[in-house]
């Protein structure tokens, strides 16, 4: 009984940790989002042809900015 509870608790903790890691990684993934006047949006994820053109420019812009405001 106690072992069952411990396993369930461990599974819950592992699930939460996995969700946090997945969310952080998905946030850190590079992407470019384009927003249009009609309210639509297109997102180019890292690895796409469009992102391969746009992300290097974004890197250059970020690198040109100072680290502190």
């Amino acid at each position, binding site marked *: 009984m106690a072992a069952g509870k411990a396993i369930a608790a461990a599974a819950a903790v592992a699930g939460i940790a996995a969700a946090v890691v997945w969310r952080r990684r998905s946030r850190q993934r590079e*992407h470019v989002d384009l927003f249009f006047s009609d309210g639509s949006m297109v997102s180019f994820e890292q690895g796409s042809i469009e992102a391969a053109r746009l992300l290097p*420019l*974004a890197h250059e812009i*970020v690198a*040109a900015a100072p680290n*502190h*405001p």
Partner: protein
Amino acid sequence: MPAVEPAEALADLTEISPQIRLAVLVDERGELVASAGAEPGQADTVARLVRELLSAAEDAMGGAQAREQLVQLQAATPEGCVFLVRDEGRLVASVTIPEPTAGLVFYDLKTCLRTVAGESLAPKPKARAGSKAEAAEADSKGEEPSATEPSTGGSGDGSG
């Protein structure tokens, strides 16, 4: 609302938004108008790269049509994000910290553009006929509230 000087508007932008490291304002000819958070040389470089990024994004979406319709852009990298908002030829772009609150940054950039253009950010709603606001306004002018809007669809009790 009078237009605010571009440099002042960008300075306000970087002041109210700690997520923004740098901001540049570019006119319809692609010339750098003002910047905040960067040396002049850096700002010129960023303005040029921002124009290139915008042009590349438009090309990715098919050129002329995208040029008309593309109004905002966000490029996210682990080192920081690039935000861009366009409005009637003007363009404001910023570099932020990694993982910023995107909606907030877009809102601040749009507000900055409108401030530079001299547009009113939140137009004061017109008081309805018979409302307390209208009565107070009319009272301050020394006239009857209903006299200002004689044709508002009757005396207000049309549902009975």
